[in-house]
């Protein structure tokens, strides 16, 4: 099941209004093999200028490998990559690096340096870029300007990493799991920064395994699993592809008779899990009374019942049968 709603809502039309280079990044049939695993498996991807594109998937889906190939840091075993109209591995690599900003998943910046010294170091690598103080202000680290990196909190360190990526005033920003391990407030701050960058015309490609992050930040999302993109589209369209508004989860004391839930009105899909049942429901108004009536009829005794609006997580679950986080 490959969802591709881009044909209906095509950001390319947005991009073509801007200029010739509507595609900021393109890769085709990308392959990366490690000794015993195929990390990236024939992956095709296009990211349009000015959009925020998210690679959403569980750990080990191949997101980091993919993004590091796109950043020109990891060699690929097959396929083509074109970043801002240029391939990696030419004499123009240096010029291309002037135009991209990178935040890596596991970089630990030097603990002994201060925030300002760190940003200034990164600034010196670029021929043109933003002012050091301006970038520090952008990531809201003004007060920590003189603090040692080692003394910063996780969220502050991550914002500093983004500052280092922004200091060259890039056209294209790569963020690899920018908010993993951060508390909700720190996450919100980081999202603001990314949104402001995009609002100023920058293109963003990020990886995440948080569906909230993908649906908040990304114009389009590619859901990744086992080195492939298994679904691609705007968050809204992907959720819509489930044909459901609501996810209804419940558990009962007794097991329900098989095949009875599928027959209920408004139910689009049924999944039986260890802890209970999960229904994909198109119309909660008819499905819920019908479900309660059915439970009553079977005398199954309801223990818990929750409903939530369908999310990207549910899209992932419906595609792979696994949860994003424990996949």
């Amino acid at each position, binding site marked *: 099941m490959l969802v591709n709603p881009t044909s209906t809502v095509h950001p390319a039309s947005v991009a073509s209004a801007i200029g010739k280079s509507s595609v900021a990044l393109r890769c085709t049939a990308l392959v990366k093999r490690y000794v015993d695993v195929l990390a990236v498996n024939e992956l095709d991807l296009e990211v349009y200028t000015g959009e925020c594109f998210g690679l959403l998937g569980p750990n080990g889906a191949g997101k980091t490998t993919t993004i590091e190939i796109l950043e020109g840091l990891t060699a690929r075993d097959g396929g083509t990559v074109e970043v801002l109209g240029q391939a990696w591995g030419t004499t123009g690599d240096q010029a291309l690096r002037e135009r991209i900003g990178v935040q890596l998943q596991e970089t630990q910046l030097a603990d002994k*340096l201060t925030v300002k010294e760190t940003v200034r170091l990164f600034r010196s690598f670029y021929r043109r870029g933003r002012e050091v103080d301006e970038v520090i202000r952008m990531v809201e680290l003004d007060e920590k300007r003189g603090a040692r990196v080692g003394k910063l909190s996780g969220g502050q360190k991550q914002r500093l990493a983004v500052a280092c990526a922004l200091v*060259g005033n890039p056209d294209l920003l790569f963020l690899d799991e920018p908010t993993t391990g951060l508390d909700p407030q720190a996450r919100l701050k980081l999202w603001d920064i990314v949104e402001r960058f995009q609002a100023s015309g920058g293109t963003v490609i990020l990886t995440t395994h948080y569906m909230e992050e993908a649906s908040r930040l990304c114009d389009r999302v590619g859901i990744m699993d086992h080195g492939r993109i298994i679904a691609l589209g705007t968050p809204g369209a992907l*959720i819509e592809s489930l044909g459901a508004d609501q996810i209804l989860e419940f558990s009962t004391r007794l097991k329900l008779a098989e095949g009875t839930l599928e027959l209920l009105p408004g139910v689009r899909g049924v999944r039986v899990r260890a802890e209970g049942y999960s229904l994909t429901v198109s119309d909660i108004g008819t499905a819920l009374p019908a479900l309660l009536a059915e439970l009553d009829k079977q005398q199954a005794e309801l223990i818990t019942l929750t409903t939530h609006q369908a999310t990207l997580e549910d899209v992932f679950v419906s595609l792979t049968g696994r949860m994003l986080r424990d996949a």
Partner: protein
Amino acid sequence: MPEIREKLSAEELADGSARDERRQGSERQVSMQGSKRQASVQHNVEQTSVRASQSLRDRTREGALNNARARHPLVELTLVRLREFTREPEAVFWVFVFPVLLTCALGIAFRNTAPEKHRVAVESSDRSGSQSSINTMAQSLKGSADIDVVVLSPAEAAGALRSGRVDLVVRSTDEGSQRAQSSPAPSFEYRYDPTRPESRMARLVADDALQRAEGRTDVTRARDERVTEPGARYIDFLIPGLVGLNLMGSGMWGIGFAIVSARTRKLLKRFAATPMRRSHYLFSFVLSRLVFLTLEVAAVIGFAWIVFGVAVQGSLVELAVALLLGGLMFAGIGLLVAARPRTVEGVSGMMNLVMLPMWLLSGTFFSSERFPEVLQPFIKALPLTALNDVLRGVMSNGTSLAANWPELIIMIVWGMVSFALALRLFRWQ
């Protein structure tokens, strides 16, 4: 310019927050309805906002350009090296304090005192008859100012000789009956280890004293003129070697640990993702080494000069040139050793492997000429041997740098080849 910039950032902010609202609104709607119509509205709005902000962005870029006063990356990288180093108290200790302490300890251990006496044991005997001749012998030996005499039992004497507490054991072979019959003079037996120079010396001195006591006279007259030339003491030999050793150690450790820890922290990978020139990164280590080198060498040489009176015999400028070359050479070798390892343990092992032969062979504590002839070409080609020879030439012998040209060439080749190789082999991930 500042006014425009301020205005722009306000605009930017307004744009961002407007977008926030729009986004949150549309997100709510999308999740409620998920309708295609909503999404397409969102994109239409974006279309204009992107177009507008693109031109805004171009203008910000101009602004940033005009205000940009970034230092050269090499300067910035070198400053970072210096800062990181000086903020690491342990590193400061090992680079500055430790060499001075080592110099101090060795200087005291090998300080020039009155010429050392030869330690001679006279073997005692149980036989009553020989007791007097043993006493005479001990007396004759005590007559020489250069000899310390002890009388020990045969077993004790053998033990003392074995453990190095005495250099020589003198045994009287003068048995009463023998003396009467054949020989008019007493006879002695010397027991010593001929491979120990101090034992051979002790034998000569003791023999001389005993022979004189028995009445030997000198055939010709000789006069002693005692001189202690500056630059000829052991400490004068030692200091240039310690300086060389220090340059090697701090070059290797200072560079190796910094690079490998940056590699394990993925900092090198992050740098590789910027337009930073890779040679700049490596060269910043060389430059920062030169700064530290000046300080650490000044500490050791200054200390040796003040405390032990070790003066530099040659030209200070030439000494500086020699030190500079040595520092560059070991920075290059340090970079090469650190080019591949992924762990601090790995690089430590490699550095020890590289340094150990030079610790032993390169003539820091004793002259490398003591090693067999076959090894000499190999020893001479070692970086530390070349540096030590050059430093001794300038510091102790006062010869010109040009006299040591083969060593200088060896040093330059080591430095350049290892830097070039390091740049090629360097692992950035």
